[in-house]
C-alpha cells in the first residue's frame, strides 16, 4: 500500500463461478459424473423398470395424457398428495355441497371437476356430480334468468340440453377411469331418457349396462324403451331370451313382471299359442309386489327437447 492510497482497503477482482477456483469449475466435474452415472444406472435398470412398472402402474389412476399440461396437473396432484388424495378429494366434495346449497353454479362445477381429478376412484363423485349438473344446475340457471314462467321455452330447452351434455361429458370421463362400469352407463341412460328424451340412446345405454351385469331393471327398461320405439319384435326376442336366466328366488329379478310383459308382447305380435313361452308354474310373487305403492302426484313438468 502506498501513501497515495492511504488506508483504503485494496480491492481485488472477485472470483466468479467461471474462475479456475470458481464453484462451477469445482462442481462441474461432480455434475458431469452425476449425469453420466445416473444415465448409465437408468439404462441398466430400464429392463427392471419396464418389467415392474406396468404392474405398479395398474394400481394408479390413468393419467390423462391428451395434453401435457393436463397430465402434469394431475401428476403433480397425485405426486404431492399421495395417499392423502382420498381425504382431500372428500373435503373438496364436501366444500362443493356447501356451494350447492347456495346455487353457486360456477363453484359447484369446478369443485366437481377438482374432486374427480384428485381422486377418480369413488363412483360417488361421478354419479352425484353428474346428477347435480344434469338435474339441479338447469333449474338454477332458469331461476336466475327469471323462473320458468318468464324464461321462454326455447331457452329452457337449450339450457336443459347444455347441462345434459355437460353431465354426459363428465360421465364419459368417468368411463375412461372405470371402463364399462354399469353405474355410469345407467346414469347416461337416465339422462338420455329423462333430460334429452332420446329413447334410442337411452335404450342403447340401458342395454350396455345390462350387458355389464347391471341391475335387472336395466334390462326391463331396455325392453320397455324398445316397445315405445315400435320395436316390439326386438323387445319380445330380448325378454324371451332373458327369461330362462332370471332367478326364481330374487325379488329384484321380478320374474312375474317380465312374464306379464312377454305375454303382452305375444298378444301384440299375434304369436300363435304353440310358439308362446311355456311356463310350468307361475313365478313367485313377492309380498312387496302386492302392495299399493304410494305414487307422487303428477307435477306436470314442462320439458321437451329438440
Amino acid at each position, binding site marked *: 500500500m502506498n501513501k497515495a492510497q492511504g488506508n483504503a482497503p485494496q480491492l481485488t477482482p472477485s472470483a466468479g463461478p467461471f474462475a479456475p477456483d470458481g464453484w462451477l469449475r469445482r462442481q462441474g466435474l461432480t455434475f458431469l459424473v452425476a449425469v453420466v*452415472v445416473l444415465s448409465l444406472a437408468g439404462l441398466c435398470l430400464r429392463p427392471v423398470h419396464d*418389467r415392474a412398472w406396468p404392474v405398479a402402474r395398474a*394400481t*394408479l389412476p390413468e393419467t390423462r395424457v391428451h395434453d*401435457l399440461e393436463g397430465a402434469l396437473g394431475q401428476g403433480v396432484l397425485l405426486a404431492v398428495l399421495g395417499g392423502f388424495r382420498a381425504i382431500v378429494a372428500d373435503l373438496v366434495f364436501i366444500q362443493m355441497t356447501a356451494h350447492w346449497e347456495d346455487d353457486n353454479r360456477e363453484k359447484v362445477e369446478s369443485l366437481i371437476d377438482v374432486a374427480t381429478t384428485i381422486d377418480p376412484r369413488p363412483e360417488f363423485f361421478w354419479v352425484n356430480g353428474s346428477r347435480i349438473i344434469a338435474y339441479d344446475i338447469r333449474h338454477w340457471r332458469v331461476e336466475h334468468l327469471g323462473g320458468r314462467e318468464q324464461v321462454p321455452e326455447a331457452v329452457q330447452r337449450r339450457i336443459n340440453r347444455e347441462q345434459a351434455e355437460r353431465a354426459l361429458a363428465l360421465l364419459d370421463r368417468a368411463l375412461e377411469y372405470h371402463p364399462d362400469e354399469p353405474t355410469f352407463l345407467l346414469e347416461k341412460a337416465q339422462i338420455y331418457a329423462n333430460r334429452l328424451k332420446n329413447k334410442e340412446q337411452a335404450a342403447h345405454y340401458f342395454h350396455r349396462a345390462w350387458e355389464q351385469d347391471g341391475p335387472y331393471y336395466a334390462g326391463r327398461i331396455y325392453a320397455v324403451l324398445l316397445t315405445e320405439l315400435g320395436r316390439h319384435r326386438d323387445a319380445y326376442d330380448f325378454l324371451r331370451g332373458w327369461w330362462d336366466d332370471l332367478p326364481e328366488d330374487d325379488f329384484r329379478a321380478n320374474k312375474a313382471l317380465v312374464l306379464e310383459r312377454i305375454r303382452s308382447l305375444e298378444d301384440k305380435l299375434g304369436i300363435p299359442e304353440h310358439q308362446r313361452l311355456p311356463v310350468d308354474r307361475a313365478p313367485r310373487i313377492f309380498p312387496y309386489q302386492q302392495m299399493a305403492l304410494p305414487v307422487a302426484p303428477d307435477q306436470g313438468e314442462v320439458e321437451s327437447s329438440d
Partner: protein
Amino acid sequence: MSASAFGRIGVIGWNTFREAVRQKFFNFLVVLAVAMVASSFFFRQFEFESGELRFIADFGYGAIFLFGSILAVVMTAQLFFNELDNRTALTMLAKPVWRWEFITGKLFGVAVLLAVFTAVLTLLLGGILWWRETLLMTEYPDAFEDGRLVSYGGLLLFGLIQWVKFCVVAAITLFVAGFANTNLYTVVVSFIGVLICQLQYVAHDTWQDVENSLLQFILQIVGLLFPNFQMFNIGQPLTFPDSGGEIETAVPLILGYGVVYVFVFLGLAVFAFRAKEV
C-alpha cells in the same frame, strides 16, 4: 473393504442414529405422524363409498409417505451439516477414517432411523386396520365370508418397500449435501429432487405424445436420470390382494431397483464429498 472399515462405518452409523433420536425434530415428527395415522380412524366418516378399510389404509400410506420423506431429507441434511458446523467431521477425518466411510456411516445411521420410523407407523397402521376389521367382521359377517380382507403380510412388505424408498431419498440428500454449502440449500434441492422423482412417471408416460422435439428430449432425460418413485406406491394391491394384478411378482424387482439407486446415489455422494472443504 476390511472388517475395520465395517467397524468404523458401524460406529459412525450408530452415533448418527443416537444423535438423530435425541433431536426434537425427530420426536415431533414421530408424534405428528402417529397422530395422523391414528386420526385416519376418525376421518373415515368423510369417506364416500371407497371402502372404510381402504380409506384408512390410504390415509396411513399418505402419512408414511409425507412424514417419511420429510424425515429422510431434513434429518439427513441436519445430521450432515451439524458435523461440519461443529467441526466434529474435521476431527473424525483427521483420524484414520476415510471420507467414503464417513458418508456411508451417515447413510447407515439415517437408514436405521428411517427403519424405526417406518416400522412404528406400519405397525400402528396395521393395528388400526386389524382392530377396525375385527369390529366390522362382528357387525357385518356376510361381507367377510372369505375371511379377512386385509393382508397384514402385504402391509409389512409395503413398509419395507417404503423404507427402501426413504433410503433412496436420504442418499439423494447426502449427494446434494456433498456439493452444497448450506443446510437450507440441501433441503430445498432435495425436496425438489423428491418431487421430480414422484413426477418422473408422467414424463416417462407422456414423452412419446409430445410434438415439441426439445420438450420430448427433456422428458426423456428426466425419465432416464431420475428414479421412478411411483413404483414404490403399491400399498393398495399389497394390502388388499383382491384388487387384482400380480403385484407379488414385481416386489423383488422394485426392492432391487431401490437398493441399486441407494448405492448409486451413495457413490455419487462420496464423489461429491471428496473435494468438499470440511
